[in-house]
């Protein structure tokens, strides 16, 4: 796209970022952050990185946005207005100078490097062996599979950490209900959420499948699934499961466990996380589907938060 378009886009990104940080109202700041995430997604599109654009809009703007809004609503319900004590003008000026200096240093560093995609050519020569065409999926699941494996455990670990700080009376109950719909009011969102859940499953499956050759993949598909689960929970179509539900726990570990299992199987062939010749695509797609299910469930539960005592379930929805 043209340089003028990119320039305007970058100015809008900086403007929304500044608004999200400098606004007095915390909720207003979060709304600007969501707009910022969507503009960032367009920036990634402009860079030709469609995979990242999908992930940024779905996770960076969508999931992070709903997470922050929900935390804000729950804090407000507890009487915390989410206001910042004002910092002294001197301190703000000093911090502005320091951060300005950091920006200058980073800019000098950035300008000293000339942008290059030389890894792309190396990766392109290795792609035919995998039988898939999306180089980003190739890097994620084959060339740097170690990173991705650990990342899936980071995500699972975050959920374990969120669960670990549940109050003793709350363990192992359900998270606070997200439902905003009751049988008498908001039947539209209730019906909508029922329709959207199966549609999001189809969309997630499509994104994972197409992620082998075109933009998409396990993280993007899993996030769409998480979105469907969350909207269904908001509409009251489903209740989120208890933390000790064995089916839930098996879905949560399915992806990382399968990835790790296939990776360990690679040791028999000589190297951790190597795929047997001829089976690369089948194994990559299998891992991706399992990962998408686990990522969807994990992200949805991360947004819902820690388990709470049953009495609080009715009033904790906000």
């Amino acid at each position, binding site marked *: 796209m043209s340089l003028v378009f990119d320039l305007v886009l970058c100015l809008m990104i900086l403007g929304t970022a500044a608004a999200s940080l400098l606004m007095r109202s915390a909720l207003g700041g979060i709304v600007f952050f969501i707009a910022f995430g969507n503009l960032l997604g367009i920036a990634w599109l402009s860079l030709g*990185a469609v995979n990242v654009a999908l*992930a940024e809009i779905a996770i960076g703007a969508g999931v992070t946005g709903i997470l922050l809004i929900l935390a804000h609503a729950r804090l407000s319900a507890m009487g915390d207005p989410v206001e910042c004590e004002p910092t002294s003008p001197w301190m703000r000026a000093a911090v502005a100078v320091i951060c300005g200096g950091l920006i200058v240093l980073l800019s000098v560093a950035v300008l000293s490097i000339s942008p290059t995609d030389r890894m792309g050519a190396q990766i392109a020569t290795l792609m035919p062996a995998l039988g898939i065409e999306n180089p980003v999926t190739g890097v994620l699941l084959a060339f740097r599979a170690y*990173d991705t494996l650990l990342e899936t455990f980071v995500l699972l670990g975050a959920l374990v950490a969120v669960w670990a700080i549940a109050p003793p009376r709350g363990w192992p109950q359900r998270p606070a209900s997200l439902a905003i719909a009751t049988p008498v009011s908001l039947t539209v969102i209730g019906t909508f959420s029922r329709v959207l859940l199966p549609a999001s499953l189809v969309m997630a499956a499509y994104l994972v499948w197409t992620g082998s050759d075109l933009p998409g993949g396990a993280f993007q598909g899993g996030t769409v699934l998480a979105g469907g689960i969350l909207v269904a929970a908001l509409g009251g179509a489903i209740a989120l499961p208890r933390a000790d539900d064995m089916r839930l726990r098996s879905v949560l570990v399915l992806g990382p466990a399968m990835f790790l299992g296939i990776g360990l199987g690679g040791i028999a062939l000589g190297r951790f996380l190597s795929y047997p010749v001829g089976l690369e695509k089948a194994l990559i797609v299998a891992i991706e589907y399992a990962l998408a299910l686990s990522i969807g469930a994990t992200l949805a539960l991360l947004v819902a938060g820690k388990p709470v005592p049953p009495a609080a379930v009715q009033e904790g929805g906000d």
Partner: protein
Amino acid sequence: MEALATGHLFALTGAVLVGLGLFGFITLRHALRQLLAVNVSGAGVFLMLGGLGRGAATTDPFPQALVITGIVVAVALTAFGAALTLRQAEEDHAAKEDDERGGKT
């Protein structure tokens, strides 16, 4: 030449975002808003990676994959940070209610 300029433009935007996020992180005195500031800084780092991976026609898939990993780790961090903030607020709220009840009797 234009591809180089595009890459540098986005990488410089990323550099400014890192500084903006750090400014917000230090000056905003509420954990939830500090989480938001960390996310702005993180997005800046991702944009620097992506911008510097911009070639003549395409963007290097290697930084793209790193950025996707980074986005997922950032959301995991945000979720845990929000949960900790809420848990702390619950403790404070319960302590305040106890104080009020103690004051009445």
